[in-house]
Structure formats: structure tokens, C-alpha cells
């Protein structure tokens, strides 16, 4: 089981002081949080990608490369990389480069992006979001697996004899998660390739996401990548903790009440009752996070949103210290509950090992889609070694 933090990278005024960090402060704070994540024993740091204020992270691989140089174990990821408006060729190149620099500590989460104006800024149309995600990823998938690609599609210039460089580290592409909050088509896409599916269920009720994840698991099995419980699932989470539960509620309430996404709407109490948000003592956070597994089954990656809504860096660092106490408990509990047949979170090392095993046996048996590429790659993930 992998645990980490993901950040949107919003520049938001602290509602308790009125102070707004500069872009420079916010960017540096994100790096500080990533280093802190490694220090407290988390596995993953993931940054968002945005191309409009009040968000700063427009260039994720630049930031992740910088963090890679200052960390040793942390997996560097995204939440999300825009598969619709980015050129898949550039994604293939940027993340392969990052993979080499970070010695394989890289994966990425693909998403469509829901900000209408961003699409035309990059010459695209949000009404074609699903089509863009499907075509662009199909090309990205090939660019990382075929040394020379001839390709023609609807959305970009054709490629003749194109080689994306550098080639993926050890011949193994970065693991890909597909993130979606409402589109069965994206769950279907993740299932087809045997990739991971990330349900950022932090803002909506659980029942909605249970349908989506259950569908992904069924389709993952349908495409021959393993049984439904072997599908690779990631979930979001959002917590605010203090030793004393009442202190957590009192401190977090002004941030909640003014938060960009849900502020000025439901009460903190209603929202925590209806969504995965936990505000309280570390034990309350542990108890609530453990319910995710009851709803979604054994899963591989848990990412927490810790640094939004104008919370100052100092507070977020204190929160991470508390998270550093909570995660070992969650890790122990969830790892103990997960059957041996269910894979652990994907790592480069495990992917390399299973690729080597697949090469040694020549062809993965019992996989009807093995000749097609995607299933064989996905099958490899299933063998990811246990932590």
C-alpha cells in the first residue's frame, strides 16, 4: 500500500489572516511539502497541472525534477497530467526524461481537465474531451512501447518514423493512473490497458464512486488483466488533525467555510458526514480512512490533500507531522488485510521485475489479449512485488 499527498497548487488567501502567498512562496512551499513527505515516510508526492490563476503548477515535470534531486525514495507523480490539451509526444518525452533523472521514481495520473477555456488556449475543444483522452493516450502508450512509430489521428500532426527520446528507463514505461470523477469511459479506458484507476472521491459522496470503481474492476477483469480485486485502485482523501478533536474542528472551520470548492455551502459537519473529509483526532482520521477499504475493496494508493484553502505552510507541515504518525497505522492495518493475491502499489522496480519475468516466459499465458500489447503490460503490473 502506498501513501502520499497530492496538491492542487492553488494560491488562496488565508481566511484567518487575509494574507495571500506569492506565487514564488507557493511554489517553494510545494517543494517543501514534497521533501517533508519523504521525511515522514510517505511514498508519493503528486502535483496538479493548471494553466490559469489562482494555480501555479503549469510545468509539473520541471517541479518534479527539482524535487527528484532533493529526495531519494519518494515516487513523483501528478494529479493530474492533462491528456487532452498536452501533446502526447511531449508527455512521452517529459516523463521519460524525468524517469531517467529520478531513477524510476516516477508515475503519472492522466485526467481531462474540466476548465472550459483551457482547451481553446491549447487549440482544443472541451466537447471532445473524451475523444482527446482516448486518442492521445493510445499514442502515448505506443510511443513508450514502440521504438519507431508511424501514426495518424484526428488531433495532431501525423508521425512517420518517429522515435520518442529518451526511451523509458529499463525499457519500462512509467505506470499510468487514469483519474476521473464521473466518466465511465475513463474507467473503461483504464481497464482496457490494465492501468490504474484513481477516484478522487474527496468532494462527493462515496456511493457515486463505488459504482465507478466497481465498474472499473469488472472491466479490468473483462479485459483479462486479472480478477476484479486485482485491479489497481487509488483514492483521494482530505484530513485535518489535532490531538484534540475539537481543536481540529475549531481551527479548520474558517478554512472550510471559505474554501474555493465547497465554501459558503454545506456545514463542516454535513460535509464530513457526506464525503471522505475527516476533521478530528488522528484516531478519527484512521477510523474514517479505514472505511474506504470497506467501500472500495483493497486498494493500492491513498493520496491526501493537505495544503489547500489557504492553509499556511507552517500549519500544513504540522499536519504532515501528524500524518506521519497516522500513516504507519493505516499501512499496517491495510497491508495486513490485503490478501496475497492482490498486488501492492506499482513501483518501477516491480514493473522491471515483472517485465523480465514476462520476457523469460516469452508470452504471458492465459491472456487472450497478450498479442495486443496493453493486456501484457497490465498483466505485468499485477505481479508487482509486495512491499
Amino acid at each position, binding site marked *: 500500500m502506498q501513501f502520499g499527498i497530492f496538491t492542487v497548487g492553488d494560491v488562496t488567501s488565508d481566511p484567518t489572516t487575509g494574507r495571500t502567498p506569492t506565487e514564488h512562496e507557493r511554489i517553494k512551499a510545494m517543494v517543501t511539502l514534497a521533501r517533508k513527505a519523504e521525511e515522514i515516510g510517505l511514498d508519493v508526492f503528486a502535483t496538479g497541472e493548471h494553466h490559469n490563476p489562482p494555480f501555479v503548477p503549469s510545468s509539473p515535470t520541471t517541479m518534479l525534477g527539482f524535487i527528484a534531486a532533493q529526495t531519494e525514495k519518494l515516487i513523483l507523480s501528478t494529479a493530474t497530467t492533462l491528456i487532452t490539451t498536452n501533446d502526447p509526444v511531449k508527455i512521452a518525452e517529459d516523463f521519460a526524461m524525468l524517469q531517467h533523472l529520478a531513477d524510476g521514481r516516477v508515475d503519472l495520473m492522466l485526467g481531462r481537465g474540466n476548465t472550459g477555456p483551457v482547451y481553446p488556449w491549447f487549440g482544443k475543444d472541451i466537447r471532445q474531451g473524451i475523444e482527446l483522452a482516448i486518442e492521445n493516450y493510445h499514442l502515448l502508450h505506443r510511443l513508450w512501447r514502440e521504438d519507431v512509430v508511424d501514426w495518424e*489521428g484526428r488531433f495532431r500532426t501525423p508521425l512517420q518514423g518517429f522515435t520518442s527520446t529518451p526511451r523509458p528507463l529499463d525499457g519500462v514505461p512509467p505506470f499510468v493512473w487514469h483519474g476521473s470523477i464521473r466518466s465511465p469511459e475513463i474507467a*473503461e479506458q483504464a481497464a482496457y490497458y490494465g492501468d490504474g484507476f484513481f477516484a478522487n472521491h474527496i*468532494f*462527493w459522496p462515496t456511493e457515486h464512486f463505488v459504482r465507478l470503481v466497481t*465498474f472499473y474492476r469488472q472491466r479490468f477483469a473483462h479485459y483479462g488483466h486479472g480478477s476484479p480485486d486485482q485491479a489497481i485502485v487509488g483514492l483521494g482523501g482530505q484530513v485535518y488533525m489535532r490531538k484534540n478533536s475539537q481543536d481540529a474542528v475549531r481551527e479548520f472551520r474558517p478554512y472550510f467555510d471559505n474554501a474555493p*470548492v465547497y465554501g459558503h455551502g*454545506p456545514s463542516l459537519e454535513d460535509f464530513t458526514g457526506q464525503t471522505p473529509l475527516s476533521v478530528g483526532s488522528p484516531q478519527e482520521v484512521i477510523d474514517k480512512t479505514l472505511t474506504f477499504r470497506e467501500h472500495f475493496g483493497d486498494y493500492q494508493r491513498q493520496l491526501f490533500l493537505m495544503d489547500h484553502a489557504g492553509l499556511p505552510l507552517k500549519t500544513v507541515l504540522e499536519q504532515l507531522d501528524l500524518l506521519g504518525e497516522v500513516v504507519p497505522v493505516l499501512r499496517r492495518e491495510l497491508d495486513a488485510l490485503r490478501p496475497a493475491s492482490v498486488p501492492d502499489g506499482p513501483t518501477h522496480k516491480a514493473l522491471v521485475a515483472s517485465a523480465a519475468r514476462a520476457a523469460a516466459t516469452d508470452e504471458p499465458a492465459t491472456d487472450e489479449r497478450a498479442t495486443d500489447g496493453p493486456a501484457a503490460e497490465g498483466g505485468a503490473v499485477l505481479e508487482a512485488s509486495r512491499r
Partner: protein
Amino acid sequence: MTARTIAVVSAGLGQPSSTRLLAGKLAAATAGHLPAGSEVNTIELRDLAHDIVNALLTGFPAPALREAIDQVFRSDALIAVTPLYSGSYNGLFKSFFDVLDPGSLAGKAVLIAATGGTARHSLALEHAIRPLFTYLRAVTVPTAVFAATEDWGSAGGSGDALTARIDRAGAELAALVEHRKPAAEADPYASVTPFEQLLHDN
């Protein structure tokens, strides 16, 4: 004939509310033309007002609102009644239909009605409320019912005309429902296009 379910949405804000009163009469008239055992579920939007605003802000409905939305979705027919504010439906009425899942009223048999101070506002049903349901791809019955304050007066005068109109509208809705299949649960996951097709249709 099978028993049917009718959802009644009333956006009246007063208590007691003439909009709620009109909604009740329309429901009774419709039920009178439907088989025995047909069910009427009334949703008073006033009780859900905060949840509706919250759903606009957060993108998801709280449990009580979810139940109301599901009730409308599962019903064979909808009776939608609003007071007229500033020449049109009130904001609460519109907000409720704004938070329904897209397409969830497609093909739904709907009877529209409104209340207002004077009969001068009655055409708001035709220029504002019927187009809303047309946009939502619902099927509205021809008779829309408007009740002005004076219509609630003595039984001998214009009250009779209102009663007759209510009954005609109820009969139209019942007749429309009678020829339709019972409402079925739509499952978005049952109709997902297989990936090969998504890829090749691209």
C-alpha cells in the same frame, strides 16, 4: 392498467401556500383518472432550499435532496407547480431543475402549473415554464393551469372554471401516462461503449 407513481414538485414558499394547494388539487385530479393504487409523492422545495443551494455549490445533493431527485426520476409523471416571481418561475423552482441529473426528465410526462396575483401573468406558463421543460426534453400536456388569487374565491364564479381546468389537465396527464411504459431505472454503466469501439470510432 398498472398503478403509476406521480411526483409533485411545489415551489411555493408561503405557509400555507396556494402553490401547494394547487399542486394537491392537480395531483388528486390526475390520480382520479389513474388506476386505483397509483401513488402520489409530493416534494416541497421549501424544505430542501438549503440543500438545493448546497448542491449548486458542491455538485452533489445531500441525502434528502438525493431522495427527492430520485423520486422525480422514478415517477411515471411529474406535476410541477411554481409561484410566479418577476414574470417567471421562482429561483427555487429553477434551481431544483438545475440540479437534476442531465437527461433525467427526457420523455417524462409533465403537467405544468403556476400561481400568481392576477391573471395578467398567466402566459408565463407558456413563455417561461413550458420552454424549460421542452429544453429538458420532457413531454408537457397541452393544458397548463394558472391560478390567480381571485380564482380561489367563491365556488360559484371563476372557481368553477379553475376546477374544470384542473380536472382537464389531470385527465390529459393520466391519458398521456397510460400510453407510456412505466418509468425504468436508467443505468449509465449498462450502456458504456466498449473500448475498442471508443478507440475506432475516434
